[in-house]
C-alpha cells in the first residue's frame, strides 16, 4: 500500500526505554531518503531491532518522533512491511506459498489476488513451488516467500530484520545479490538490519553504524558507493569499501561509543 508522496523517513531525537529501565537507544537522528537502501549495522544488543520495531510501529519512541517527512507514524501498517529473520514463524504453516504471499492483499477478487501473488512469487524465483507448504521449503526458499509477501503489498518501505542471519553463507550471498537486484528493479526503500559488515557493504547505499548498547546511538554513517555488480570480495571496489568501513569502526574504538 503506497502512501502519498514523501521525501524521507525521518527519525528525530528518538530515545527508547522500556518501563523506566535503562535507555536502549538514545538521541537517534536519521534521515532515510526515499528509494535508498539503508543498512543499520551494529553489534548484538545495540538496539537496532528496537529501532526497527519503532519504524514498523510495533513500539513507540519514549522520546522523539518518527515519521514520513512531518507525518508521524501511528502504528504498524502495510506501507512498511516487516521481513523477519524467524521465517519459520513468520510464514503461516497451514498455508501454501501462494496463499502466504496473498495473505495481506485485500479488497480484490480472488483471481486478482492469485495473479498478484503469482507475479510476486515469480519475482523471487519461487514459481516452481507455488503450492508447497513452508515445511517443505528450505530456509532460503522460505525467506524468498516472505520477501514476495512483502513486495506484493507494494509497500513504501521494506523493513528487514537480519533476514539472512540464519542462512548458510552460500544461500545468504545468493539472496543478497537477488535482493539488490529486486531493490533496483522496484525502487523500494529498504531499511535492513545486520551485524555483518560484509553484508552491509554488499547491499547498502547508506550504512548507519550504531554503537554498542545500552544507550546506543549512531556512531558513523558511510556510503559504500558500489554498483549493483559489486557483490563480494572478488570485486576490488568492494574490498576497498569493506576495508574503509572496517577501519572507521576500529578507529571509533570498535563499536564503543566515542566519549
Amino acid at each position, binding site marked *: 500500500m503506497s502512501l502519498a508522496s514523501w521525501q524521507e523517513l525521518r527519525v528525530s531525537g528518538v530515545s527508547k526505554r522500556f518501563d523506566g529501565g535503562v535507555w536502549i537507544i538514545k538521541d537517534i537522528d536519521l534521515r532515510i531518503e526515499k528509494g535508498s537502501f539503508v543498512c543499520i549495522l551494529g553489534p548484538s544488543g545495540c538496539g537496532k531491532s528496537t529501532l526497527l520495531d519503532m519504524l*514498523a510501529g510495533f513500539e513507540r519512541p519514549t522520546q522523539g518522533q518518527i515519521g514520513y517527512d512531518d507525518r508521524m507514524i501511528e502504528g504498524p501498517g502495510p506501507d512498511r512491511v*516487516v521481513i523477519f529473520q524467524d521465517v519459520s514463524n513468520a510464514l503461516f504453516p497451514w498455508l501454501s506459498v501462494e496463499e502466504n504471499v496473498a*495473505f495481506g492483499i485485500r479488497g480484490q477478487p480472488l483471481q486478482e489476488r492469485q495473479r498478484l501473488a503469482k507475479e510476486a512469487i515469480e519475482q523471487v524465483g519461487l514459481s516452481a513451488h507455488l503450492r508447497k507448504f513452508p515445511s517443505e521449503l528450505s530456509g532460503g526458499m522460505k525467506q524468498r516467500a516472505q520477501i514476495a509477501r512483502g513486495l506484493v503489498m507494494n509497500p513504501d518501505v521494506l523493513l528487514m530484520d537480519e533476514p539472512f542471519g540464519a542462512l548458510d553463507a552460500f544461500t545468504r550471498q545468493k539472496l543478497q545479490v537477488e535482493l539488490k537486484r529486486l531493490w533496483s528493479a522496484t525502487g523500494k526503500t529498504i531499511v535492513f538490519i545486520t551485524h555483518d559488515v560484509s553484508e552491509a557493504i554488499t547491499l547498502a547505499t547508506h550504512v548507519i553504524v550504531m554503537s554498542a548498547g545500552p544507550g546506543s546511538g549512531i556512531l558513523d554513517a558511510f556510503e559504500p558507493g558500489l554498483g549493483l555488480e559489486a557483490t563480494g570480495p572478488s570485486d576490488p571496489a568492494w574490498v576497498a569499501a569493506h576495508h574503509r568501513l572496517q577501519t572507521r569502526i576500529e578507529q571509533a574504538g570498535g563499536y564503543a561509543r566515542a566519549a
Partner: protein
Amino acid sequence: MKALWLAIIVVGLLLVWAAAAAQVGNPLLLPAPHEVFKAAATLWQSGDLSDHALASLGRLLVGLAVGVPVGACLGCLMGLNPVVDALLNPYVRFFNAIPALALVPFSLILLGVTEISRYALLVYTISLVVLLSARQGVRNIPRIRLKTAESLGIGRAATLFRVVIPSCFPSILAGVRTALGLGVMVIVAAEMLGADSGLGYLIMQARSQFSMANMLVGVIGLGLLSLLLDRAFVLGIEWFFPRWSIRRRVQA
C-alpha cells in the same frame, strides 16, 4: 516390517498367557486365550458385544460433541483475554485435580442412574482437557506471527479468524486426542456403577456371573476400542484437515 514385529509381539503375549493359564490350571481363575476367543465369538454372534461397544461409543461421541466446542471456546477465550483467564483459571485448576472417577457416585446420586449423569461426567472430563490445550495453544502462538499480521495491516477480528484460531488448532486437536482416551476410561467407570449397556456393564455383568472369559472379552474390547478410535482420529485429521495433519507437523 512393522506389521511383522506387531505379529511377533502379539503371538508372544498369547503364548505367555497360554503358559500362565496352563500353570494356574483353573479356567475359572485364568482362562486360556482360546477360551476367551470362544467367549468373544459367542458374544459376537448374539450381537451383545457389538451392542455394548456401540453403546459405549455412542456415549463417548455425545460427550465429545458437547465437550470439545465448550472446552475449545472457553480455552481460546482464556488464552486471549487476561481478565477472563484470571477469573476462570483458579476454578479450572481446582477441577482439573478432581478426576471424573471421583465424581461418579456424586453424579449418580444427583442426576440419577441416567444417560444424563453419564454424559455429564464425559463432558466434564473432555471439556477440561480440551480447554487446557486450547488455552495453551493460544498462549504459545509465536509473537512473530501476530506481528506479521499487524504489519500486513490485518485487523483484530480478521487476525482472530485467520491467524489465532488456525494457530491453536493443532493444540486443540492434540487435546481432543487425549480426551478420547480419558473419555473411554470415564465412560467405563460410569457404566460399571449403573447402566444396562456398554463395555463397562459387560465387564461388571461377567463379574457377577464369575465369567472370567467374558470379563476379559470386555477388557480387551475396551483396549481395541481405544486403539481404533485413536487411529481413526489420526487418519480423520489427515483426511479432513491435511494442512494440520500430524505427519506434516512432525516434518515441520
